[in-house]
């Protein structure tokens, strides 16, 4: 599983650190770090929480098709 750069860039666009995002969705900073590095597959519940905080859709952040890479 590769790195999830879309979550990282969406977070950076919102000017949030990993810690801020982790606190907003109620997980540890290490969990957010693992998601961005592709070391951990989050549950759909956590994906939705991340999307809501970052103001994106599930497709934009987590779908692995070419249409949603940008």
């Amino acid at each position, binding site marked *: 599983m590769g790195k999830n750069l879309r979550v990282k860039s969406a977070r950076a666009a919102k000017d949030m*650190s*990993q810690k801020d995002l*982790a*606190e907003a*969705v*109620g*997980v*540890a*900073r*290490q*969990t957010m*770090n*693992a998601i961005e*590095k592709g070391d*951990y597959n*989050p*549950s759909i*519940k*956590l994906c939705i*929480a991340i999307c809501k905080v970052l103001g994106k859709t599930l497709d934009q952040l987590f779908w692995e098709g070419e249409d949603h890479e940008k």
Partner: protein
Amino acid sequence: MRNKDGLDEMQKGRRDTIGNQMFMFMFYALLIDSGLYGAGVRWLNYPANVMVIISACISIYLVRLIALHAYHPPKTQNRSVITLIIAIIVSIALAIALSMGHIPEKTNDNSGIILFIVSAAGLLGILIAAVIKKATSRKDEEDE
């Protein structure tokens, strides 16, 4: 995202995995030990041998949990390591002070060695975990 322990889903998954592994490790270690005991190999008198195996397993379990950030819930992860180190130093100083005091009588049930092993394993585990935690959190910050 948190369960009743306050751990998030990744922490809970890691804790479950490590717990299963250490449980199986402890089972096989006790099985081998009982086999050796039956064959006449006695590396430590009963029940100290069982306590050593259980203490070792629980220490490894705790060290691995702390090293993988699966021990503390997200809310309590900002505690200082200095507090932990001070607690360890005070515990060691207290243990030394008590060992220099008057010992009332000797017993034959290995209770002294069991207490010593459990305390030593606990302190060593905490110390190793503190060092690993410090190193891994520094690496995580570099990755961010």
